């Protein structure tokens, strides 16, 4: 079947015709266009987060998104592919996401002590799946304003504070969260809906709010 492929290349939309198998992921579609388009990819199977882009207005991993599953393809025979919009553009569909990593350093996302084996291993496991892909920040209505650090910080912090036994550092992680995350997040849920790893971001955010912001909770539980 033939479809139109509309790609935002360096700010301008270009339309390509594609005729062939549609039961392929978007990365394979890009490879088959016979036109050199820059984009990031590494694992080609949804494990590394490199290929996050905006496909028919939704941030997704291109290597896991099948062309024939897209409603726009089924209904109108067109697919629109754009780079993530909240990071500096490198070229074509490739963006520079280094800020996501830089803020992890600012927010002290590491352990000072030996890790405790927490009571909820499954929670820690899920939070460790974050790909740093930036799909969440793309969907978040508040990311991009006022130095908001982004969902990945809450995801990482929610695990680290249960693993960390150095209470000073644990406090420090919570303080950073309270300053750099909490005031900006309106709990709109958009991040959880788009996360390709299905990370329960709302549980992470709630846990962090409970542990670092709600004084009453802290007083009651003695967890200051």
């Amino acid at each position, binding site marked *: 079947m033939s479809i139109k492929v509309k790609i935002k290349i360096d700010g301008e939309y270009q339309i390509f015709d594609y005729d062939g198998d549609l039961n392929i992921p978007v990365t394979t579609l890009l490879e088959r266009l016979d036109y050199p388009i820059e984009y990031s990819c590494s694992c080609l199977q949804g494990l590394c987060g490199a290929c996050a882009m905006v496909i028919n207005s939704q941030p997704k991993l291109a290597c896991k998104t099948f062309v024939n599953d897209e409603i726009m393809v089924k209904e109108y025979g067109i697919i629109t592919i754009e780079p993530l919009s909240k990071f500096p553009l490198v070229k074509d569909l490739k963006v520079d996401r280094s800020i996501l990593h830089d803020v992890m350093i600012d927010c002290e996302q590491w352990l000072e002590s030996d890790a405790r084996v927490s009571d909820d*291993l499954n929670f820690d496991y899920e939070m460790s799946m974050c790909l740093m892909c930036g799909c969440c920040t793309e969907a978040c209505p508040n990311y991009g304003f006022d130095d908001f650090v982004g969902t990945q910080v809450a995801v990482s912090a929610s695990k680290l504070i249960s693993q960390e036994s150095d209470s000073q550092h644990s406090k420090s992680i919570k303080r950073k969260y309270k300053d750099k995350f909490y005031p900006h997040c309106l709990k709109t849920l958009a991040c959880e809906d788009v996360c390709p790893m299905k990370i329960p971001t709302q549980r992470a955010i709630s846990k962090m709010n409970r542990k670092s912001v709600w004084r009453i909770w802290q007083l009651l539980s003695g967890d200051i």
Partner: protein
Amino acid sequence: MSEIIVVGAGIAGMTAAVKASELGSHVTLISPDYSERSQSVMAMGGINAALGKNDSVDEHFADTMNGGCGINDVNAVKRLTDDAPQIINWLSSIGTTFTRDGEGKIDQRYFGGQKKKRTAYAGARTGKQIVTALINECRKNEAEGGVTRVVGWRFLSLIIKNGKCLGVICINEDTSEIREFLSDSVIIATGGLNKLFGKTSGSIHNDGVATARLFMQGVELANLEMIQYHPTTVNTPVKRMLITEAARGEGGKLYTIRDGEKWYFMKEWYPELAELMPRDVVSRSIYKASEAGKNHVYLDISHLEESIIKTKLDEVYEICTNYLNLDPTSEAIPVYPGVHFFMGGIKTDENHKTNIQGLYAAGECSVQYHGANRLGGNSLLGAVHGGWIAAENAIMDSNDDYINQIDDELESFNKFEKSGKSVDVEDELAEIMAQYMGIYRNEEDLKGALAKLEGLEVKANSYYDYIKLESLILLAKACVISALMRKESRGAHQRTDYPQTSEEFKRTTCVTYDGEINVAFR
């Protein structure tokens, strides 16, 4: 304080960076992309260590040597298996969320080539969980100033003077800027030689160019003919994807249809270990049972509990449902062997030193632990161990010399002229390798492969693509010549014209380049 360069930021590179920084050195950690994108995150099944009461490091050692068919480095394997329990403890202490049993102890599962439950795992994503913990550890060192990450750069060449390495020259992926990085020592941790075969089960980042360029500069390589075909890969529109060995470890069975009935050939041929024989044996068995791919071979896990498939094997479930439109809880998975791991690469000793002073290699790009066939779960172990040992040794080097080598690199960059798309030649190269460097090889085919490789003409529209193809074609020739010269069958290297294993070749294939490719068995 010594200055160390680590090239590659997967599990081996990050471990090296963390350890060297903890020991007081400053590390510049160079990679094309962040560690979340490294192939290490793709490892699913697990990591080996003799932790259980009824297991021992001696048995781990013996199984590893047997799996490698005796050409592994004995001293290195001894240290690897002795240190393995300590490595698991360290990974746990930095926050890796290993799966635990009812008593809170790290759980272990069966993997191929091992009679004991020796493979520790973290759900269905062991590599990812380890990488996340290592990134945090690395980040702490970055914040404290011990590690500086340089992201977006690929290795071009080593700076060498009088047989000593003084640093590296790298190229920026986006801007093509070329830059030198000087240091007291260099640790290479750039992963496998995937690009030789186009697309493998692993990451397309691991193009093998660092190894190929080092070879051109006189670094000794080894065991290049030892290429692991993983027995169970599936064909998707994207590439051949891996179905982890854990699927067999948890009880998955292999069969093909013979005379209208399911024939469980592994059980028939190898009653004791059956599906859990080492990978080389299982791959060859699938090849034979399917009559060289004419008939389908199936991996059946549908008899396992659905909850096991959806938790411990959730990645298998995802691959089957997403990429094959197949439900493994009720249907068998059609599988065939595919290129997965390179036992060959940069020759290092038990201290991870290469033949160049001040140059080390660790992880999949380095050779010492796995011999002619790597056991599942030993690679993650080797990557951590290698990074650690390389760091401990590299911090002792010092250097106050300099040589201007970057001008030569810039000159050849400036002389470069576009000559056409490199992908076509890359495809041809991959085809030659797939066709002639398969599970079974013979002299006539290998000579044919050499002739075809000779005939390849380098075409490229960018400088990096040019040096990539030029060096990979040379590396491919070195692989084929190694396979030609090893006139026996051992592990991953099977010759139809020399089907026996020969004592004479119970040695490492050592390969050097000085304008000609030289192979010696030592």
